[in-house]
């Protein structure tokens, strides 16, 4: 499935460029359909996962829903010509962070918290705030849509990893080092927090 997806993204992307001419009748028919189909499928899955994350009682179910969202987002990244970010998303987010989450959920037995009230007392205020935020987004969408540039850059998909690397080790070298420092701090912090006796 990712292969198909990938191919679809690749082909569609090629056609989205104004200068590219479709390679054939079938291509001209299929590409927009494939892109649209996969976009709606993946974003639907992502949003569905998001809804499940915040509504499930059982934390493990929430985590699994979050994994669904993460994988769907990785698919979207592939469609956006960001294969490297997609790979990192899968290997780090779904394979690393979520395993950590599941591990902790299993360590911290949450059975009794399932039977308790799932939402806090200020949930009305919270939902109102979120509604206000979505209103803001909606307003931005309505007013700003026209200002949005229509054309997209044709990113060189085959050398995506190289261009990311050049930026990461060139322009953002300092930030990269800071990030490694951040991770070091996080490791030490996590060990100190979780260890029973030091």
């Amino acid at each position, binding site marked *: 499935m990712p292969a198909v997806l990938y191919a679809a993204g690749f082909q569609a992307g090629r056609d989205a460029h104004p200068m590219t001419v479709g390679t054939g009748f079938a291509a001209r028919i299929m590409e927009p359909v494939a892109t649209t189909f996969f976009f709606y499928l993946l974003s639907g899955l992502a949003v569905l996962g998001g809804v499940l994350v915040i509504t499930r009682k059982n934390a493990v179910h929430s985590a699994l829903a979050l994994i669904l969202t993460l994988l769907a987002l990785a698919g979207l990244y592939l469609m956006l010509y960001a294969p490297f970010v997609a790979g990192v998303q899968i290997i780090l987010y779904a394979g690393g962070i979520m395993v950590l989450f599941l591990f902790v959920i299993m*360590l911290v037995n949450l*059975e009794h918290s399932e039977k308790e009230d799932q939402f806090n007392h200020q949930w009305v205020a919270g939902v109102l705030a979120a509604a206000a935020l979505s209103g803001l987004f909606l307003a931005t969408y309505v007013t700003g849509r026209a200002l949005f540039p229509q054309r997209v850059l044709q990113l060189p998909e085959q050398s995506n990893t190289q261009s990311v690397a050049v930026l990461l080790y060139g322009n953002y070298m300092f930030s990269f080092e800071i990030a490694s420092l951040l991770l070091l701090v996080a490791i030490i912090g996590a060990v100190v927090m979780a260890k*029973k006796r030091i």
Partner: protein
Amino acid sequence: MTDQMTTDPSRLSHLELGEPAKTYLDSNELVINMGPQHPATHGVLRVILKLDGEKVLGTECVIGYLHRGVEKIAEHRTYSMFNPYVDRMDYVAAVSNGLGYCEAVEKLLNVQAPPRANYIRVILTELNRLASHMLWLGTHALDIGAITPLFYTFRDREEILKIFEKYCGARLTTHAFRIGGCLYETYDGFEDDVKKFHKFVTPKIDEYEELLTTNRIWVERTKGVGAISAKDCIALGVTGPVLRASGVKWDLRKAQPYAAYSEFDFEIPTCANGDTYDRYLVRMQEMRQSLRIIEQAVGKIPDGPIMAKVPKVMKPPVGEIYHSIEAPKGELGYFIVSDGSTQPYRVRVRPPSFVNLQALELMVRGHLVADVVAVIGTLDIVLGEVDR
């Protein structure tokens, strides 16, 4: 520790260990039932483990799943009728069990088995020791994860069982000896068979050692695991290879020779650390020593009768007797009380496995779950003997 040991399962199912923990964090413990149906408990032993993650905080053995009331049965059988029952206790070393019982009753009757019978007894008992140690090695290695030695040892144990079968018709529960000697004369070619076996198995033991003794993973898994000091061993009454691995040179074959053992030249292998690796080494050495005894014995089996004069209806004089032998697993003792009738008033067995099992708690506390399996294997228990 021994006072925790009890055979009343109704009390034990709600342990002093407390209710199962709510969480699996180190603040709370996890209680796991290992057994009675578990591949690594060598039968129907149930070990209740109190765990902190993977670390063992405490254990409790629940036994009795294989209890058949062997000792009680003895009170309703004549002396010779009870003889086959003892084979069913330590069923991997049935010959040793029979030897112990027969000698105890002979002592009670004040009868001496003839020298030829004693030689046959020694040969068969030592063969049985080899068989028992081979079974131990195979299952112990299997518990630690090495699957191949099991098949090697079973291949070689088969040769021993073939000799048993040719001698008395049975392979496992042999009932080879009778009170007063042996019932069966050796078959034609018995000595050749034993000699051939000796030649066959000596390089095989090197083969086992090649697979395991210097294997890094094996050494890492066994060195320092389940160590027990000589003092603790003596305090708990632990005997056999477990005791010898802790550095105590105590073997009943030397300490109070029975059968014909005083006539043979052999050594008592000992080690110093008392850990699983040392017990492994001791047993491997013991196998070689057994082969040595067999080699000496088979060359000079004396001629003569194989049965002493024993009355058809045995009525030992009133009195009591304790006789113990060095079974493959440790000291196997029989305490028999006679009231002068044809049936024993009471028979009490001191099984080595039962006593050695006490040491489990001491040996595994603070170790990991995987070590529990290794230690159960190294104690070499047979549940038929523990529960009787």
